[in-house]
């Protein structure tokens, strides 16, 4: 009975008793969710256009952030470093397309997936070789990002909002809107959607697959850089971020592999769910449940809706 009470009643009593704390937890969940959503967005972009499950997205986040910090440490102004980091991501996108994707065209998806794991190993080695393995701090202030915090008095308590987190949420929103406009209004965006729809048909109307893939990888690189800045500002820029990036997988399951809004909503669900569960129920299991809870949500979700919230429904019976 006590166990049942602890599972079903006590957490809600606690939530009701200290609503300010609940709000704080929800806010933390929202921030974590935004970051998961941003990583997932990078995955979705590449998956939509080429059907490649880009495992290297996580390391691209680390790599782009390291490049930015590295250029700044070399004595360049912050905005010049940002521009140069973008140039590096463009070069990376071009090289990936030229040396990895193009020779592997038409291979089974497992092979492409393995190739991106190989790519992530390569980037880990390259990143550590150039920048060293130790964590670095992000140049938050130099980039003009706010660093203070606001305390809101509410429900007889208070909620602390970091300005940086607010900025992160706004930047994420802008990024998503820009991507949506890019996909629906521009010539290249339409070509991208055509490629996503049917490779052969797109080829036959004169769309260059190679060019499209390079552009998509560059777009994923931009998203990676934005994620890297935000995440790096919250903690440090380190290679541990890679494992966190794997959390984007359950986000994708929830949202569907091909849906941009799905990635956002999936990220938020995982972010909220994870923080709430960790704070209110994690104690029963000894804590640290954040590491696997997202996957379990995805697992349960898969049982009922295998195509995700916004994914394309594929009916197949076995």
């Amino acid at each position: 009975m006590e166990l049942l009470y602890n599972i079903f009643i006590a957490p809600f009593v606690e939530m009701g008793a200290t609503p300010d704390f609940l709000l704080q937890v929800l806010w933390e969940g929202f921030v974590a969710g935004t970051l998961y959503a941003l990583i997932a967005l990078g995955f979705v972009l590449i998956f939509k256009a080429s059907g490649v499950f880009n495992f290297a997205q996580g390391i691209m986040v680390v790599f782009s952030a390291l490049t930015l910090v590295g250029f700044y440490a070399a004595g360049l102004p912050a905005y010049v470093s940002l521009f140069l980091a973008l140039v590096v991501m463009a070069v990376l996108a071009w090289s990936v397309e030229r040396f990895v994707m193009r020779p592997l065209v038409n291979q089974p998806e497992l092979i492409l997936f393995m190739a991106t794991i190989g790519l992530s190993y390569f980037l880990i080695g390259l990143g550590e070789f150039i920048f060293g393995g130790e964590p670095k701090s992000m140049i938050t202030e130099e980039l003009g990002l706010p660093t203070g915090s606001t305390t809101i008095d509410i429900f007889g308590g208070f909620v602390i909002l970091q300005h940086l987190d607010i900025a992160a949420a706004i930047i994420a929103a802008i990024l998503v809107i820009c991507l949506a406009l890019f996909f629906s209004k521009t010539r290249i965006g339409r070509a991208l959607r055509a490629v996503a729809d049917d490779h052969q048909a797109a080829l036959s109307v004169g769309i260059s697959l190679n060019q499209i893939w390079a552009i998509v990888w560059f777009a994923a690189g931009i998203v990676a850089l934005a994620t890297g800045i935000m995440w790096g500002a919250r903690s440090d820029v380190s290679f541990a971020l890679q494992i966190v990036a794997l959390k984007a997988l359950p986000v994708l399951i929830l949202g569907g592999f091909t849906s941009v809004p799905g990635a956002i909503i999936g990220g938020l669900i995982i972010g909220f769910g994870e923080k709430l569960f960790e704070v209110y129920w994690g104690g029963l299991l000894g804590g640290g449940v954040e590491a696997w809870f997202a996957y379990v949500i995805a697992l349960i979700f898969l049982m009922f809706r295998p195509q995700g919230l916004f994914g394309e429904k594929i009916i197949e019976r076995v």
Partner: protein
Amino acid sequence: MFYREAGQFKSTYKADQAIFPILQDRMAIAFYLAVAFIAVPIFGSDFFITSIMIPFLVFSLAAIGLNILVGYTGQISLGTGAFMGVGAYSCYKLATIFPDINIIILIIASGFFAAAVGVLFGLPSLRIKGFYLVVTTLAAQFFLEWAFIRIPWLYNYNDSGAIEVPQRETFGIIVTGASATPSVRYLIVLAIVVAMTWVASNIIHGRIGRAWMMIRDMDIAAELMGVRPLYAKLSAFAVSSFYCGVAGAMMVFFWLGAAEVESFDVNHSFLILFMVVIGGLGSLIGSFMGAAFIWVLPVILRAVPNFIGIDVNAATVEHLNFMIIGALIIFFLIVEPHGLARLWALAKQKLRVWPFPY
């Protein structure tokens, strides 16, 4: 010319169905086994046996396990590291609870625990496939990693949180623990790996293995022809996890001597997936080749700078290692997506027809 079956006539069905139908192949296998069982323990240095041969064999077994799942049944898994961990932790618990039972029996028995866990996490495979399955196996990976830390019963409530291998004797010879000699540990690992490879080969060439391959090639057609996906998929998960569990138990008991959660993390899952893909999906000999490639190559790369006489610090070598392995994986996938096993098959074909082009 040298490698040709001309003149080797088969007069029974048994001979026709042999795994190694060509005499030269049988001689080569006998030769390799002789080298592995006799020459390596006699002539190999302790470093060679403990740092190269034992891990190579352990990873080969794990790669065979994963190959059964990925290569033969077509279900991608990233939970190999955790399944190895289940084997290791259950073997440790069994060794604590039953100190008098022969440790080799316990190692095999621990495979059954891994198999049970594997079946549990394999259940979603009945509904989903592809990358969705990757996520469920990642769930297994992270959940089990968490369990290895948070359930102190698993490591007997000791302060370090690590499992340490107790000393055990078999027929009066010390086989585990710090005072067991490398050659004894090596020979036991080798014997288990050879025996289990033989069993795996028989399973794969039999009815169960064929059902797995049918599921891999086309699940709908397989079901129409009377293969039950439930049994085929779950048996693949069970056998695969059994092999991984035994490999994990051997890894701790005969190689590392003590282990923490880090020995079973997601990077090991990737490492073994690399071995399977580089070696060749759906090939037993490929599992050995892949394990040799992925495990031995970094050891060689580490030795190269000293050998040439360039002074490079260890960290730089490690980073270059990562880059070289990453690049080689991409290179191999581009040049030969079917892995080293296919290269080996091509080489054999070339040898058969030599000196003619075809």
